[in-house]
């Protein structure tokens, strides 16, 4: 299997950082070698030869497309992460708002009539800043 490893390493010479995809390809080639040995009763040597031969032209292996897809996938993940953050902050702000209002109207009214507004204004910056971040991220990679 060392030859399969070398073959794949050479293929990824110019794309060395995509370890995940390298492993996936190695795995698929190992599986083919295994199947050839088991089902077609080839020797290990012949099975490896056939596997490399059948792989065909290296230019058909779309490394650039794979790298592009990886970037897109990562970006999607980051955006999803930011969106979750935003959602969480909005819900938390609403909850904090409600608590402050209730507290203000029931307990604190006589002492700090303006407290709820100050707290609300402060807390509001949380989702606002996250919203800003999300928008920035979106704009970045367009």
């Amino acid at each position: 299997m060392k030859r399969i490893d070398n073959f794949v390493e050479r293929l990824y010479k110019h794309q060395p950082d995509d370890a995940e995809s390298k492993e996936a390809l190695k795995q698929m080639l190992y599986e083919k070698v295994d199947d050839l040995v088991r089902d077609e009763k080839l020797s290990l040597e012949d099975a490896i030869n056939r596997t490399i031969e059948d792989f065909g032209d290296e230019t058909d292996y779309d490394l650039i497309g794979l790298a592009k897809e990886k970037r897109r996938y990562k970006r999607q993940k980051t955006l999803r992460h930011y969106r979750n953050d935003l959602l969480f902050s909005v819900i938390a702000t609403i909850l904090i708002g409600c608590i402050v209002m209730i507290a203000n109207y029931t307990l604190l009214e006589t002492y700090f009539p303006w407290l709820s507004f100050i707290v609300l204004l402060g807390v509001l910056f949380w989702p606002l800043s996250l919203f800003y971040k999300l928008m920035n991220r979106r704009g970045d990679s367009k």
Partner: protein
Amino acid sequence: MAISSDVLRGHLESIILTLIKEKDRYGYEIVNEIKARTDGSFVMKEATLYAMVQRLERKEVIDSYIGDKSHGKKRRYYTITPLGKAYLKEKQVEWKELKAIMALFMEGKS
């Protein structure tokens, strides 16, 4: 007559997804299944297919897991995601439309 993979390239995604939708399969099993079903009339470039499977995984239309050891070796199986099922459905509609359009010209229907 053998159809070259360039013609079918745009549809290879749909072929792979259909096969994985039927049941979870590992990489070489997909290659083999295509060969068996087309009886050699579709000359597929394996390099293209291996890259395509990985792209589909990154598009999150398929997912993979390491399966149980069968005959001593573990295998990475690919399975379709809900997103993949929706995507495949879309592709099927697209294909029907394409087929109808091509039939208008290639089969002289009007």
